[in-house]
């Protein structure tokens, strides 16, 4: 295997940063800080997309990077912060049980993700594809976060982190999906966040809290 180029090394460092942020999210209690971490994740995505666009000379990836910058660093965090203010949950702390266990499960997921991506990365024609394992790990960690958290707001953050992992997988392994498809996905995510926002108010109106412990009446009986 030839020695990786400088840009590939930078890309792998960025991938590592993405994974690190995912772990930080898993252990973060404050909703406000979670949004900050989400912005960081978006920034890393923008940088990595720009890097791939520059090294592979793909103009459509520049568009994609701009779109990410606007959506993930600008609009979505702005909506989330606004929602937090309107709902008055800026200072909310979420009690987290068993952070060490959560971390261990997370580590297990990362190993699992690398194992799963191994056959694909083994075939890699570009160095770029080797980041697939990390992208999958980010996705699985976000899933773990959605499962482990009991607050509606945090679950949505997990959902967006999941989407970030998907986006990273798409840009680094395939130089991005075709532009039209990417636009469609971005639109779906944006509409999704709007609906989530509407939902927060409905949930609070009905249950007086965004704690999902209340949403457990529909059980099999």
């Amino acid at each position: 295997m030839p020695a990786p180029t400088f840009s590939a090394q930078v890309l792998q460092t960025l991938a590592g940063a993405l994974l690190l942020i995912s772990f930080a999210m898993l252990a973060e209690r404050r909703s406000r800080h979670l949004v900050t971490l989400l912005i960081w994740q978006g920034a890393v995505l923008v940088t990595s997309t720009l890097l791939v666009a520059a090294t592979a000379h793909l103009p459509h990836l520049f568009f994609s990077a701009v779109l990410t910058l606007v959506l993930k660093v600008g609009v979505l965090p702005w909506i989330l912060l606004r929602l937090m203010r309107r709902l008055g949950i800026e200072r909310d702390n979420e009690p987290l049980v068993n952070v060490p266990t959560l971390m261990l499960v997370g580590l297990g997921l990362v190993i699992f993700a690398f194992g799963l991506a191994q056959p694909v990365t083994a075939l890699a024609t570009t160095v770029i594809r080797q980041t697939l394992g990390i992208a999958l790990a980010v996705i699985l960690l976000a899933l773990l976060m959605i499962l482990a958290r009991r607050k509606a707001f945090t679950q949505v953050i997990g959902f967006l982190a999941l989407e970030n992992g998907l986006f990273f997988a798409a840009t680094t392994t395939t130089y991005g999906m075709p532009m039209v498809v990417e636009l469609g996905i971005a639109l779906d995510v944006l509409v999704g966040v709007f609906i989530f926002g509407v939902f927060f108010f409905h949930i609070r109106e009905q249950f007086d809290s965004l704690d999902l412990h209340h949403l457990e009446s529909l059980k099999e009986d």
Partner: protein
Amino acid sequence: MEIALVVGFPLVGAALLALTGAQRRAPELNVAISLATLLAVAALVVRVIRGGPISAFDEQFFIDPFNVFLVALTALVGFTTAVFSRPYMRIEAAHGRLTERRLRLYHSMYQLFMAAMLVALTTNNLGFLWVAMEAATLSTVLLVSLYRTRASIEAAWKYFILCGVGIALALFGTILLYVAAEGQLGGNGMSALLWTHLDAAKGQLEPTVIGLAFVFLLVGYGTKVGLAPLHNWLPDAHAEGPTPVSAVLSGLLLNVALYAVLRCKIIADGALHSDLPGRMLMGFGLLSVVWATFFLWRQRDIKRLFAYSSIEHMGIMTFAFGMGGPVASFAGLLHMTVHSLTKSAIFFAAGHAAQTAGTQRMDGIRGLLATHPSVGWGLMLGTLAILGMPPFGVFTSEYLVLTTAMRDHPWATPILLVSLAVAFAAIFGRVQPMVFGETQAPALPHPPSLLPVFVHLGLVLALGISIPAALSEWYRLAAHLFVR
């Protein structure tokens, strides 16, 4: 051209209803838009019968024997559900469960949902397929929580999170598929996402990547099919949303999701050179059948009961497609059609039954034949049809599935037979006292519209007796796609 109309009518309709929907005539407008869509689909079908498969818009959209009948079915059930929802939602408004603004949201989202499903069915681009499936989820989330009760918001949240996560996994699968295909079909162009191109080149795709992609696609879209153990959202969403929404979720959305899984399976089959995808479908299908059957016993809510029955039937279809081969695939396609028609008819009748009794709890619903004989008969005949009584079409398809299973996978036959018998006892035992028996419930404020119920059941009966030549030809050609 026809495809543009098919997708365009509901899209324009959604915008129109969102702008003007608060007026009194919105239900009629909704019916008219659905009728326009149905007529456009009819024109499309005529063209396909005359001239064979077509593709449009630079190959981004296409109609082949596999999706043509699903498009027709979707437009038909969409229209009859609109007809049913006209008096149903008026009664709900009269009972004070809905306001004008919510009705506007309902009508607009209903058309948007239809548009999303029609795009998902007609698109050739797997990326658009994903976008359309996500749009279908988003538009129905607000429909499930339409009543804004605690239970309905909980159901909608569960639906949103579970299906959102599921569909995210499907996106990862789509990305992997693209990774595998861009080497063969060229990156950066659309070609590597077009199903027809993938299908043509499936023999040369990298098996390990496609295998991994298929697992993600199956789990992702399978969540929306309601395959056990990923089915948790389904009974809640069906029970807590308005009945017309339950009818289109069960009758149409599950089919569309299964369609997405099957398109992916055809490619995976060709690339993998093994029957792994088939075995996975069989496993998920059988598990869903057994799981749903045993949960049927524990249901007290009429809509939950039939939601579990939907999981069971999606399991039967998934199992049939998993077995593969021309006969089983034919049976699976037929079962998609008859289940969709029957289950939506049952939800129509069950919705009016619940309105009459003022509750969805089955022990509160009694003596439907005395208050509204047409509702009682509709529910009874629909139940008999879904339980696989001859001469209804469900019998034909289940018979074909069972005989194929007996020949190819004898071990599965007793499991299927026992499940069907248990489901029969569970459902029939509960429906019988609801239809017969004594009641003092007052009649409904608006006469219920039972015409759709009997049209659907009539079609299922006709399909049970003989299948039209064009339809069986499509089934045969589509089943041929599943033969490697």
